[in-house]
């Protein structure tokens, strides 16, 4: 068995929620007076005042392996990354390790817009922990990899975003630590470049035998890159093992999950005097036994609410779909109808072969006479769309927000020689 490089024991991370102000100052003073942190022992998932972002995380990383960390948004992936990267401290537990770690939670950290590309290569390289000698040695390689040689003496604020990312990734790709911690958000930019990033990451692990900790919520990427994987959910590790079997159980877990919220179980329904929401749910039209939402799956959204009608008022519901980075992808609207007071059901469909793979969330907006907003139900549904490539040879992340299957045809015009 190869050497253990990282050993995480009982890692937990506690966050206090809410706004910092005079109230939190009072609590701080109390804690300071008593000489210890006031942390409730029992995790209470419903609490609005605190959260255990991670709870009793144990894992080991061995030399030369690529360990994948998969989980939904909010599962605690980023927090764990930050602890390993020494950006934040765990509340409990400890991580021990051997070897130099470089963390790529972002490319181009510390880039200064006013400085030239050349200056920024050094600046960023040093921030990532490289020494001057190392950068001098790899400088030409970095420049070549980035493909921005012509603009080396131009301030990076004049770069296009593509060039900027290329240069940033080029530096990151030439780091030479024993352990590399990579966040998937790293693979940004256009499709070609993303492919280049993933290929580079692969070659770093295969050819150079680097140990890599890779975080993603994309099953396809983890399958492509990792030997072993862990699934994080609500701050706990729920499965671990070789990536194939872990992914299989992760997929199963997602399948069994009910996508939606039934508010009628809560003590009070969200809403106001005009609108009360009973439930919102997502019902996918699964295509096969596997029951995974992939890019081909059509999604039905159904919601029920109580409507307090007003004289000569019409009700309209708008549905907004956002990407995980809070970008509004599109908004669709119902027709504005004069409905009577009472329980109302609405439904909408997002066809298959429309959204690209990724994480999305939905918000509902209730309007009177198409203009005045009665109620806004923010981010009530979260869902992930998995990639499906079929027979396609390209294995990287497909670019773009939408991914329609409009026909693109090729014809042979000249006779084959």
């Amino acid at each position: 068995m190869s050497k253990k490089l990282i050993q995480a024991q009982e890692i937990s991370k506690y966050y206090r929620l809410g706004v910092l102000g005079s109230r939190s100052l009072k609590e701080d003073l109390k804690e300071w007076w008593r000489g210890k942190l006031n942390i409730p022992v029992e995790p209470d998932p419903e609490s609005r005042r605190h959260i255990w972002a991670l709870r009793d995380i144990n894992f080991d990383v061995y030399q030369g392996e690529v360990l994948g960390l998969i989980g939904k948004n909010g599962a605690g992936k980023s927090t764990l990354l930050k602890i390993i990267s020494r950006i934040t401290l765990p509340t409990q537990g400890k991580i021990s390790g051997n070897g130099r770690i470089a963390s790529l939670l972002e490319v181009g950290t510390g880039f200064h817009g006013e400085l030239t590309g050349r200056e920024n290569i050094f600046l960023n390289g040093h921030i990532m922990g490289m020494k001057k000698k190392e950068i001098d040695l790899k400088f030409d390689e970095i420049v070549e990899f980035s493909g921005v040689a012509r603009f080396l003496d131009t301030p990076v604020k004049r770069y296009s975003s593509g060039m900027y990312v290329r240069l940033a990734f080029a530096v990151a790709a030439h780091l030479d630590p024993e352990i590399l911690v990579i966040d998937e958000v790293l693979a940004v930019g256009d499709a070609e470049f993303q492919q280049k990033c993933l290929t580079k990451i692969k070659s770093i692990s295969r050819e150079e035998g680097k140990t890599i900790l890779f975080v993603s919520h994309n099953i396809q990427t983890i399958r492509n890159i990792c030997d072993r994987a862990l699934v994080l959910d609500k701050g706990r590790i729920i499965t671990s093992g070789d990536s194939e079997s872990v992914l299989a159980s992760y997929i199963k877990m997602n399948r069994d999950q009910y996508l939606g919220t039934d508010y009628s179980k809560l003590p009070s329904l969200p809403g106001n005097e005009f609108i009360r929401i009973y439930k919102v749910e997502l019902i996918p039209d699964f295509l096969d036994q596997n029951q995974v939402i992939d890019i081909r799956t059509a999604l039905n959204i159904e919601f029920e609410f109580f409507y307090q009608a007003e004289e000569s008022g019409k009700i309209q519901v708008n549905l907004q779909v956002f990407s995980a980075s809070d970008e509004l992808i599109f908004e669709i609207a119902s027709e504005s109808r004069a409905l009577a007071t009472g329980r109302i059901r609405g439904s909408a469909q997002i066809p298959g072969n429309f959204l690209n793979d990724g994480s999305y969330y939905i918000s509902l907006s209730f309007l009177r006479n198409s203009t005045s907003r009665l109620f806004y139900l923010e981010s009530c549904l979260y869902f992930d769309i998995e990639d499906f490539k079929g027979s396609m040879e390209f294995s990287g992340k497909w670019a773009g927000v939408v991914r329609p299957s409009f026909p693109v045809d090729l014809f042979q015009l000249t006779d084959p020689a």
Partner: protein
Amino acid sequence: MKDKTVWQWEISPNRPWYRLNLKELIQYKDLLLRFVRRDILASYQQTILGPIWVFLQPLFTTFVYFIIFSRVAKIPTDGIPPFLFYLPGSIIWSYYADCVTTTMNTFQYNAYIFNKVYFPRIIVPLSTILFHSFRISIQLLLFTGVYIFYSLHGTVLQFSWQILLAPFMIGIAACFALGCGLIVSVLTAKYRDLDNIMLFLLRLFMFAAPVVYPASLIPQKYKFIFWLNPLTPVIEIFRTSFFKPHPLPLFYLSLSLLTTMLVLVIGIILFNKREIQIMDVI
């Protein structure tokens, strides 16, 4: 199972306050110098006068002091030409003030980096101090120029061997500024109210140091308190060494050194202990 592996590093909730990792700090020497270089390069991008601003700043300030404190308020300057009298005081003072204000905002200004990458955080305040030290060295050249100009034009100025202490005096100011800045940076990270108070206090503090008046103006009964301020001997010795030979106030100088070291040590310990925890509340 017995675990016999020896670990090179460990991450745990508690950081002992005494563990200042000097070896690690030396490993990041290149980063420190690069930050200084970045600040120097960046501060004069897209300006017309460029590096000349390093000179203009103290000249303008001194000119304003000259008008207000010498012409209007008629505060004596120990028989030294007022312009020449104010120049070193204002240079040293603004060095101190700039160092403190930038250092105390370390976490707020650098959160975007601190949130993504680990390196010893103290590199940032250290680079700030070095950057301002670079500026003050140039400004002191300007002062020397003005000094020579005055001497050539008939003003009788007597310097003493104490001018050799100038770098040492600037060093005290730097350490004191670093210490103050570090302490405030840790205190203001969570609750920003203190920032405003600090800026206000800093402005008042200028008048507690002999920047716009000579120390000889202070009545005997306040003398001790006045000289407790580490900046007082710094500015006073700097000035007398260039203008009028004066025995070294050794007692106050050592007192100033002691205070400075105390503030600096407290600052480093606080900063070292809290630098990572602070990231949860920024």
